[in-house]
């Protein structure tokens, strides 16, 4: 068994250098500099620069980024969502009755969300990680992650033959998490038969910071404002239809897009590549096992209908960081299940709730059944007339509702 390879020791190894993994590493290191943290990622160096997607960052998550010293580098790329409209319509409807409008501020001057290009977010997080002394290593696949009870570590075996032994392994390696499988954690999941087409368009006229969600028969069609007269789209279709559309010529794709996008913002043109992601609901049965905690999509993949994927992931990062840092300051073993259970209790119920909410919304809206259409329209109309309920939804969307939010999400130090 003796190998010529090295064996390093860290307090924490994070598997996955996406924004959730990086945010977790940064949040922990910024609060407890004495902990040694390394992030390993299977993708080659600089692959992250090719991510053309953008994400909605809710107010709570941007408070956290601000507190961690990242927001200042990001704000020039962030487009505030100033208001939002929701319609229930059919493809090609010229006039779409607006059922719900939101003015998007949680506090004066603080929009409930911003749209940020993923690569800018990752860039800012990587640079902060580097400043804090977090090692980020690309091009390394994790091939095994076994617990050694006597040494009080989990040993992560890397594709280059090296081993990293850590007191805690954070699985931030996405929906198809390899670490989750290595720990033997099962998932509950189902597919919606829908895919989300993600692309970026440029339009003639400014969007004025308005986000739109149109509930079309095949599923939600969301237009989210970006900088420079551009918008990010999440366009839901049946999976076969989505695959067909993505493979079509630009001309055909654009024509189909225009039918749904409408002409309010003038002529539109594609401003980036397009990809379709199959949509489903995936929830890990456990968020923690001994010496491992799941964050982000490794713990939960939900429908993008409410734009909450990133925000759930940031909540995980904030809650895990708070759990780990507080345990470490008490001299407790940060990888022990008795410590990690607090994180699980904190996040699992909230995640389950969000998973169910998005599931129900999607089932309610992704169809063209007349009675359902009437029920949901009356529902949306009612919400629109009740300011208290609306402000509840805005707070919910901003991630600011609920008792016991992690301190970082309230913009406070751990």
């Amino acid at each position, binding site marked *: 068994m003796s190998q010529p390879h090295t064996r390093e020791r860290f307090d924490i190894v994070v598997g996955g250098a996406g924004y959730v993994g990086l945010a977790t590493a940064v949040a922990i290191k910024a609060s*407890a*500099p*004495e902990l040694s943290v390394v992030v390993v990622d299977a993708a080659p160096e600089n692959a992250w620069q090719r991510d053309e997607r953008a994400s909605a960052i809710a107010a709570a998550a941007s408070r956290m980024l601000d507190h961690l010293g990242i927001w200042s580098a990001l704000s020039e790329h962030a487009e505030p969502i100033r208001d939002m409209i929701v319609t229930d319509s059919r493809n090609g409807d010229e006039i779409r009755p607006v059922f719900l409008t939101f003015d998007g501020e949680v506090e004066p001057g603080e929009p409930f969300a911003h749209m940020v290009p993923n690569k800018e977010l990752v860039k800012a997080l990587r640079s902060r990680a580097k400043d804090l002394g977090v090692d980020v290593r690309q091009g390394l696949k994790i091939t095994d992650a076994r617990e050694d*009870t*006597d*040494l*009080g570590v989990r040993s992560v075996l890397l594709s280059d033959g090296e081993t990293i032994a850590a007191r805690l392994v954070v699985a931030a390696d996405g929906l198809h998490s390899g670490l989750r499988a290595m720990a033997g954690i099962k998932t509950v999941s189902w597919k919606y038969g829908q895919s989300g087409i993600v692309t970026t368009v440029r339009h003639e006229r400014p969007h004025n910071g308005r986000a739109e969600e149109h509930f079309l028969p095949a599923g939600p069609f969301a237009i989210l404002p970006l900088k420079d007269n551009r918008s990010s789209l999440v366009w839901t279709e049946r999976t076969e239809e989505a695959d067909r559309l993505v493979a079509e010529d630009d001309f055909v794709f654009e024509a189909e897009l225009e039918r749904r996008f409408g002409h309010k913002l003038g002529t539109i043109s594609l401003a980036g590549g397009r990809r379709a992601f199959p949509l489903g609901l995936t929830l890990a049965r456990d968020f923690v096992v*001994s010496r491992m905690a799941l964050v982000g999509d490794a713990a939960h993949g939900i429908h993008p209908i409410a734009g909450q994927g990133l925000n759930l992931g940031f909540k995980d990062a904030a809650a895990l960081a708070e759990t780990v840092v507080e*345990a*470490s*300051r*008490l*001299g*407790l*073993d940060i990888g*022990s*299940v*008795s*410590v990690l*259970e*607090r994180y699980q*209790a904190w996040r699992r119920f909230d995640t389950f709730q969000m998973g169910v909410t998005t599931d129900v919304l999607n089932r309610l809206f992704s169809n063209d059944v007349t009675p359902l259409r009437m029920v949901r329209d009356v529902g949306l109309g009612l919400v629109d007339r009740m300011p208290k309920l609306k402000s509840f939804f805005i707070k919910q969307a901003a991630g600011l509702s609920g008792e016991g939010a992690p301190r970082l999400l309230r913009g406070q130090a751990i």
Partner: protein
Amino acid sequence: MTIAAEDKNGDSRQSSIDQAEVDRFSALAREWWNPTGKFKPLHKFNPVRLTYIRDQASLHFGRDARSSKPLQGLRVLDIGCGGGLLSEPMARMGAEVVGADASATNIEVAKIHAAQSGVSVDYRAVTAEQLAAEGETFDIILNMEVVEHVSDVNFFMTTCASMVRPGGLMFVATINRTLKAGALAIVGAEYVLRWLPKGTHQYEKLVRPEELQRPIEASGMNLIDRTGVFYSPLSDSWNLSRDMDVNYMVLAERPKAAAASRI
């Protein structure tokens, strides 16, 4: 079962002990430190008592409770340390810890685990009386879940108090002798929930706060804080509470003597 291990260095002792014994102690260490095993209640209880100790000690000694080593340089005695569940965190918080337990087995187990986790604790198979007789003194004495198991509370408290340095602290955690404690801590924890082995606690040996206060004050120390600790089944966690009827902790301070003869 007695281990002849007096101040020899780890390696030579390791080789003089037979392998079966080492394996047995390792297995016991695994048991003590398994957060879902037999000692789960202690693991669950640990954060609340550690937080209390750290926060009170930081306040008293003027430390920053949120720093990584708030107890740096303080000499601590953990009496009845068992497998070291309190000693190790205290050492990680910077304290210079002596872990004492009357059971030589516990001490071997604690030593093995400390070596595995790379924490430095001075573990000794001695009683409080022996330490006092050796003239040992401490900034902080931890007397956690011990007094309900000793035969003479007065004598034990007086002995411990005698080792607290001027300006030093003593923490005592135990279970009150009330009907409620009998119902919850004995019938509930031992018979209904099976958290603890039956017979862990005997009602007559439980200790009322005033029974601690008397010997503490007679030893020239002052009680400066007291708090209840209550289990919340909903969140499955222990929290500080004003209710001292079941589990409680008291904190005593030895005044900085006017004629400060720091030992």
